[in-house]
């Protein structure tokens, strides 16, 4: 996980948000928006959707700041909001795709493969991205969230359990099942 720049600073910013101080939004966003964007993008695999989710996550954070437990870290709390919104968005997209034009697998994979920090990495990551998108999209929502937080955010299992409001045992089972299923899709073999 990217280093949080001090829980104390976050706590102060959250306290200001809870009092309705909108000026606290910008510094809080500066600290967390990149990480939240990567969570949403890893989950949804679409930059526009990911950006919408990050925006909504901070709006929710502002609206719910007064209910935030002041002793907790803001980072995992924001991650939880982002994951839940990503799951909502994923469901909505899936319903829409079923109702209207189904998204072609190759189109989706191609748009994913265009994302990356540099052109070189983009080219290198094209094939990886396509295969991962296909393997991740067949996972159940929560398993997918566990994989994203573990392997894209390097969160510990305890942090994941806290962020997703799951027991540690459920996180372990979910990670085990998700990786086994991805193995079957990516490498071959029984899930």
């Amino acid at each position, binding site marked *: 996980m990217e280093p949080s720049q001090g829980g104390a600073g976050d706590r102060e910013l959250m306290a200001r948000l809870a009092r309705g101080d909108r000026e606290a*939004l910008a510094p809080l966003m500066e600290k967390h928006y990149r990480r939240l964007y990567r969570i949403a993008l890893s989950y949804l695999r679409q930059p526009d959707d990911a950006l919408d989710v990050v925006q909504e996550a901070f709006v929710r954070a502002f*609206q719910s700041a007064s209910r935030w437990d002041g002793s907790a870290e803001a980072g995992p709390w924001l991650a939880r909001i982002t994951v839940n919104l990503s799951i909502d968005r994923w469901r909505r997209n899936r319903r829409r795709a079923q109702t209207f034009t189904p998204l072609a697998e190759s189109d989706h994979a191609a748009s994913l493969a265009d994302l990356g920090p540099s052109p070189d990495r983009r080219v290198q990551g094209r094939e990886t991205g396509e295969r991962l998108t296909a393997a991740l999209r067949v996972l159940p929502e929560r398993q997918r969230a566990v994989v994203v937080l573990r*392997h894209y955010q390097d969160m510990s299992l305890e942090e994941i359990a806290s962020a997703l409001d799951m027991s540690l045992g459920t996180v372990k089972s979910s990670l085990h099942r998700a990786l086994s299923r991805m193995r079957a899709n990516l490498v071959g073999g029984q899930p």
Partner: protein
Amino acid sequence: MILAHVRLRRRVSLLAAGALEGPEREETRRHVEACARCREEHDALRAVVAALEADPLREAEPPVPLAFLVGRVEREVAQAHAPAGRPRRWLVALPVGAALLAAAVLVPVLVARLRPAPEAARAEIPPAEASPLLTEDALSRIERNLAREHAARYLSDAGEVLVSVAATGVDCDPADERLDVGRAPERSRELLERRALVVQGGSEAVASARGVLDDVELALREVADLPSCVKRRDVERLRREVEDRQLLMRIRLMTRELEG
């Protein structure tokens, strides 16, 4: 050995995921070394984890500057916290201004009709001075506020257009590396038409925004000239220009200033 295998099977995944620590990790690692089937499974799962770790999305940067995102969030928050049904200030100002104008015209006429024949001295008083409802100052203030509200809305809409272009990731012609910018060119042309009204209608009131308005105009003209399916390098060039001029942040700050 079989019992240990059953017990440790789930842990093999967690070992591959790098999620085990301490004695648990050591015990599982020893088992994997001793058990060919578990070793095979562990290696296959490590390949999955390696693929995840090589995913370029891990380092993806948000496609828009922070300032723009902050602006969007602040607008959402402001709208969500406005009292229900409360219209924007310019929507209030417009009918109020119209009512005051009507009063300024009608009241003196009605008063004149209802009165007996006016004395010569009073007849010389201009109608505007006879009405205490609307002074020149009040009219100027209303006009100034309206001009600034229009300018703020124009800048805010322009910011949305520029970001929609900069943030697009939708391919319209992958073979030719072209991206879909949707209705952005058309919206830019509409905005450029609105710009003339904004600048002419309130040159004094929006004087402080002139620099931003000029830069926004330049950017909108570039977008207006684009086709809907644009070469990726053109989108990236436009994005760089917007970033170099810090245009989105300046739009946000100026919008806030104009909205008071």
